[in-house]
């Protein structure tokens, strides 16, 4: 009976060996779940939420979010892994795998009587070395379109099937390239991701402009406008009640009629100003589109429609920002100082109706600094799958541009680090060497699982890789269609530098932490619900 039991009979406790066993088994359990997801040949998981919605995913991050993990150790690991995603946008699955493997290797030595603290020291030493190796093997080069496509492809192929991945790759890279501004950080929010339940996943496209998920609310407004001025504004074009309580007294029906007219006058003035501007700038051929963040009431819509103006009301705030970036112009907060300079321009504006839903496309903008990725798919789970993938793809491209360097993928980096660590081992003093050894072995889980998921023998592939690496000295990864070694750089399999860096940091820290736990306790009353 442990001391805590004497203090609080309701406390639960697991000590020493038992605590370690609990932690390690949790880490390995999680590893087992995510193992089959790694790499382009990984399989899908089907998640059914509490409400019965279906989600299909290969993305480790999505999976960890949706799994509702309750085991304390497992959720600790899951949090680290999702933090990896928050920071870099990729590498969640690798993260869980490496943590699991680090603990598994450590377990071997601990069961032989080695103190966990010494292994943790070894891990620390190994991490320092691994980071040095990372600096040596990273390839710094100019991030031209081709390199970026390679990076994006490597990331996307692990998330969706090959044909779709190749399609998304181009879209994602072009999207980031068009919103990139020299000497400014890339703001990925400027790439709008819009979904449309329509056709198939391979119809996903990049629109150089904006897609809004609502349409004009007047039946007579044109469904298609070419060569159009865009007025972005945040002006209420509907009757608004006074803030103080007010009322009118009237004596006859005539007076009431007048009152009704006077009420509207205020709004009509505003509408008139917009119409005047339209008349001033548009000849016969040019179109005019008003996109308003606030409301436009039926009467105002009607007068605008009569002048051939297309008006959209209640646009989303974030779209207002994007609109001015995509088409140019300034977002107006009042109609008092409208000038032609406030207007943006788009080559084509049209409405697309899909059952009940309406979409407005604003396309052919000259030099758009905000673009839209229009995700299409026949059902909801396809759409979410693509959306998650696209988000990761965008992050991968952004990371590559910001890092200015990339690292060989396909398990090549891990093989190289493991080899360097083995060589480095004699320089470490004492039993910590064993920790370094464990670290080196743990990293090899990545190429092993990659091979396993593609149906090859993990050990055999690994040995081939190591031999090839020793002989050629080049960074070799697994070729997943043959199971043979390949030079990752030649095939264009590139991973993000900061993903690997983050991976090394967070895995080591969390694995050491878990290793150093010798008592798990849950003191106090169990919650009233339980």
């Amino acid at each position, binding site marked *: 009976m442990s001391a805590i039991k004497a203090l609080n009979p309701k406390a639960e406790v697991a000590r020493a060996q038992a605590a370690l066993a609990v932690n390690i088994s949790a880490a390995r359990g999680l590893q087992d779940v995510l193992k089959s997801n790694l790499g382009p040949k990984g399989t899908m998981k*089907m998640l059914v939420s509490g409400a019965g919605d279906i989600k*299909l995913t290969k993305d480790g991050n999505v999976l960890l979010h949706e799994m509702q993990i309750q085991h304390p150790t497992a959720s600790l690991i899951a949090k680290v892994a999702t933090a990896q995603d928050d920071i870099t946008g990729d590498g969640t699955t690798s993260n869980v795998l490496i943590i699991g493997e680090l603990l598994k290797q450590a377990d071997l030595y601990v069961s032989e009587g080695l103190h966990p603290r010494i292994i943790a020291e070894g891990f620390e030493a190994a991490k320092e070395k691994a980071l040095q190796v990372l600096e040596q093997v990273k390839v710094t080069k100019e991030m031209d379109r081709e390199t970026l496509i390679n990076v994006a492809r490597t990331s996307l192929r692990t998330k969706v099937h090959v044909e779709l991945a190749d399609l998304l790759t181009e879209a994602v890279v072009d999207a980031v390239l068009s919103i990139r501004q020299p000497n400014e950080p890339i703001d990925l929010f400027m790439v709008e991701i819009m979904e449309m339940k329509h056709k198939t996943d391979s119809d996903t496209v990049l629109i150089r402009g904006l897609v809004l998920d609502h349409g004009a609310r007047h039946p007579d407004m044109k469904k298609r406008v070419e060569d159009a001025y865009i007025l972005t504004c945040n002006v209420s074009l509907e009757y608004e009640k006074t803030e103080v309580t007010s009322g009118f007294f009237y*004596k006859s029906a005539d007076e009431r009629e007048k009152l009704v007219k006077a009420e509207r006058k205020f709004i009509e003035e505003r509408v008139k100003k917009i119409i005047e501007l339209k008349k001033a700038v548009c000849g016969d051929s040019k179109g005019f589109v008003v996109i308003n963040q606030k409301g436009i009431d039926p009467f105002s819509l009607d007068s605008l429609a009569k002048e051939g103006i297309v008006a959209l009301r209640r646009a989303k705030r974030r779209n207002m920002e994007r609109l001015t970036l995509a088409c140019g112009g300034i977002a107006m907060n009042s109609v008092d100082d409208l000038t032609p300079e406030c207007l943006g321009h788009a080559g084509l504006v049209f409405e697309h109706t899909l059952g009940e839903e309406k979409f407005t496309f604003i396309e052919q903008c000259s030099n758009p600094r905000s673009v839209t990725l229009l995700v299409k798919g026949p059902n909801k789970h396809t759409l979410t799958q693509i959306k998650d993938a696209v988000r990761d793809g965008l992050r991968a491209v952004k990371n590559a541009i910001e890092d200015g360097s990339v690292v060989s993928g396909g398990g090549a980096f891990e093989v190289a680090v493991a080899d360097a660590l083995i060589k480095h081992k004699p320089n470490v003093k004492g039993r910590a060497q064993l920790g370094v050894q464990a670290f080196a072995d743990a990293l090899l889980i990545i190429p092993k699982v990659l091979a396993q998921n593609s149906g090859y023998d993990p050990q055999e592939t690994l040995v081939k890789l190591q031999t090839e690496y020793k002989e050629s000295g080049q960074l070799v990864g697994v070729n997943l269609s043959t199971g043979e070694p390949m030079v990752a750089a030649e095939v264009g399999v590139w991973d993000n530098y900061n993903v690997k860096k983050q991976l090394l940091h967070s895995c080591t820290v969390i694995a050491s932490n878990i290793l150093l736990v010798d008592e798990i306790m849950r003191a106090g009353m169990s919650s009233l619900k339980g």
Partner: protein
Amino acid sequence: MAAHVPVAPGYLQMLKQGSRYYSGLEEVVHRNIEACKQLSLCLRTSYGPNGLNKLVINHLDKIFVTGDASCILRELVVEHPAAKMLVMATQAQEQEIGDGTSFVLILAGSLLENAEELLKLGLSISEITEGYKVASNKALDLLEDLSCLSLKDIRDVTEVAAATRPSLASKQYGYEDFLATLVAKSCVSTIPKSGEFSAESVRICKIIGASVEDSVMLEGMVFKRETEGTVNYVQDAKVAVYNCAFDSTKPETKGTVLLKSAGEFMDFRKGEEALMESHVRDIAEAGVNVVVVGAKIGDLALHYADKYKLMVVKMTSRNDLQRLCKALGATPLLSLIPPTEDELGSCSKVYLQEVGDTQVVVFKQNQECPMSTILLRGSTDRLLDNIEEAVNDAVSTYNTLIRDPRLVPGAGATEMQLAVKIADFSQSVPGLEQYAIHAYSKSLQSITQALAENSGTQTNPVMSKLYSLHQQGESSAGVSADGEGTDLIDASEAGILDPLLSKHWGIKLASEAAITVLGVDQIIIAKKSGGPKPRGENPNWDVPHDAIDN
């Protein structure tokens, strides 16, 4: 349940209580396949003209007797996640084409069934999915060459009727000729010169009574309503459409009438009446004789409308109002002002008619009109619902044909032809994929087989005969639905043709769904979220409530 310090191993312990987790071939793939198989088996008997109907009772205790796959699936509320994927594929087909939902389901079901066989033989999932992918691409390529006819003139009633006939025949066998002409006439009449067709423009109005053959089609619109005032027949109508209350205008701000004496009150009333009368008079003087209102109608306004011999019709649905505007060429007005010449709609005849014991308001156009209505008659609600579904499918078929006028032989001929060609193709493919490709060909045959089974023919001899015919190049030989004389017919000669696009999407969606279901190797199901359980899960639904001891 609070988090306790857990015992060592076991994956499930990591999850919230109540979650379920399945993984591996045995637990996931085979079970998924089983569920999908059951679902497609259930609908297989409803396929084709001789398919049987299902009696479905939904969670609201509403009864459906139908053979339409999309309707059955909608009311069935499938819960199994894998089966749900198939249902989603059929929904996608419904959205893209509007017809051919059972085709998707049967093909996907059969693909999975055959995949199960292959798995038992020891093929890996990736080999099967790879083979299916190759085969479905090949099938889509081959399909392009199979078109035997195309709809040349989308305005030719007989041609359109012939093209929509098979779609109707598969749902309402026996009425197909009559309904096809009806559908063709109404579709063709709504096509404007620009040639853009919208399935929205063909409206259906169901009225119980008489028989299906008494259904008629008219240019214009029909509403199940009565007129508001006393006028109920207008020839050469000029219609003003108001999307606001047909009443005295009210300000947004609250108003109070300030009166000091009874005399003022009298004056106020008089002023009110005079104003209303002037409004209505202005409208009448603008040449209007029918007023359509999309909101409230005031008593006073109605009184004056009667006085000036205006017919007043109220619309309850905003969409109906917009469609009516389209049909009449009118612009809806937002305040009670007389319409200008171009805001005014025109209609040849507006009248109140009693059909069966239902009052309907008919807006009939003698000239070309962008809207048409099919007035369906039938003896029961159920029958009317079924015919409506069938007519809707036929209209979608027409819509599909406008996008792509090519037609392929129906009656299972196209599937058989594809099956034969893909079977040949499978021989030329090296590697284990060839088994999967061959399985794909078998699945295509299962569609034809379902037709043959449902027609009550001796399936095996018919299938083998068909197969050999197709091998000899008779690419349009199909299964006869008559059940008399021969079991086989030449589909293109008999005029049984399906739109190519419908098959194209069907094959694509079914293959995708099957591949997705196969690609799943783990299922994690979260605990059901709270809230009251929906009704309909009662397994003893056919036993009275008090007979079950809770």
